[in-house]
């Protein structure tokens, strides 16, 4: 099952020009429990083209949110930047398989 089939929504956004942060709003407790347990940081790192150790992860039970923060591979506004606000990276995480 893909992440987006289980949870409410995914949001991605710059956290300043040097970071992107991705919030997975799971909705139900059950969805949160599944995502928190089954979505591996390694999978997310791979999807984002990052080293696993470079991914900051927060599992926030109260909010039923799993959050990932990573350095932008190119700084916002650089000639090679494709998405100035980092808002499309959510697509990479929402498409990940939970039962991989």
């Amino acid at each position, binding site marked *: 099952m893909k992440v987006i089939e289980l949870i409410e929504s995914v949001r991605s*956004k*710059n*956290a*300043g*020009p*040097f*970071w992107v*942060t991705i*919030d997975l*709003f799971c909705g139900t407790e059950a969805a949160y429990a599944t995502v928190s347990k089954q979505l591996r940081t390694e999978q997310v790192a791979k*999807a*984002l*083209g990052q080293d696993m150790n470079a991914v*900051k992860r*927060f599992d*926030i039970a*109260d*909010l039923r*949110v799993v*959050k990932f*923060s990573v*350095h932008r591979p190119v*700084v*916002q*506004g*650089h*000639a*090679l930047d*494709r*998405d*100035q*606000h980092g808002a*499309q*990276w959510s*697509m*990479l995480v929402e*498409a990940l398989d939970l039962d991989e």
Partner: protein
Amino acid sequence: MKANVRVLVPSGVLGLGFDSEALARAVALKPDVICIDGGSTDSGPYSLGTSTTKYSRAVCVREWRQLMQARATLGVPLIIGSSGTCGSDDMVDWMLEITRQIARESDTSDSPLNITLLYSEQDRQAMQEQLAGQRIKALEPVLPIDAQLLESCSHIVALAGAEHLQAALNTGADIVIAGRTTDTAVVSALPLARGCHPGACWHAAKIAECGALCSTHPTSGVIVVDIDEEGFTIYPTADNAHCTPHSVSAHMLYENTDPFILYEPGGHLDVRGATYTALDETRVRVTGSRWVPTSPYTVKLEGARLGGYQTTLLALLRNAHYVANAKAWVSRLQDFLHGEISASLSLPSGSYGIDFRLIGVDATLGELETQTSAGHEVGVLVIVTAESQDMANEIGKLINPFLLHYPLTDDEALPTFAFPYSPAQTARGPLYEFCLNHVLELDDPMSAVRIQVVQA
């Protein structure tokens, strides 16, 4: 008497709009201060690089007029931080000019308005001296820094904190027009000065700084927050807008790498112990947030420098053969173009860039894209970056006929693609880059800013 401050935040930023009825309702609640942001780095480095705003002046005038009228009705301070998107000195002066224009037009005040200007742009030479004195420290991710880099910045601003805004308010200001500040300091300054709970002041500020984004009706703009000695209560004033424990607590995640910690000049906010309680269907009460002072006092720096000049071209592939082979076509075309540029312009390959973005294939995510479904057409956006606009234009002209006609293989008929306008190339002007991710340590926090009092 117990400290209790009511803050009105009309919108996440001046220029984005707000619900006028919701504003009127919030004004009727008699807030103690009206606070709004004028910008951030969110829109990219161009604003700071050029010291200009991204927002329409006419829209800012219309919104600022409404806020100045609200201020006149209430007789309380009106604060704008990060004026003109980037908060440079020029943009403080731009907001002053707008303010004076509105004051002249309205002519309703019988006494002159006291306007306090808070400038936070930094001198390049002074920053080089601070670097030599080891007072500039890198944040994560660490960017290289030296005197030459600081000299190359077109503008450097420091993010002023609550102390700086309090000093501006203490001049007896009716209106504070501030350069770059932290988004939160604009909201926290007055309640902190009046003795409200420091953790509550900063947490309330973080939640309220984007206006109604922390509510169920984000575009309505208007948010009111009541801060006291124990916590804060936050609520929107638009019809059908509500704050819920989830909408409020989730806002700590927004544009924040760490959902529990927020760094500010002079310390950090820690919300790990915060509790969020619904008072009714619209208001949420928050307690348990902590402010942790740190030393030395630091302000974050932002700097932008020129990264070249750009020219873009756009072509559209509709022929199925080329749509199916778009990547291979670009690869072959790129090789050919580098040869042509070397032969005709004598440019070494590292002195310019040609970036192809295949719209409909992987323009947004590049190598990270996992989808391979093909549409029936592909947009080819070509971005040329060179050391001068003339050179970027020259490369654009060199590319133009080949972007129109280049074949996939040598033994096929010359294709002609679609150009959506003439000429196909567009001069984009200068490209700027953010180049500082550092803080400046200060013995005297006030040394980072300049305060000036004027009248209108």
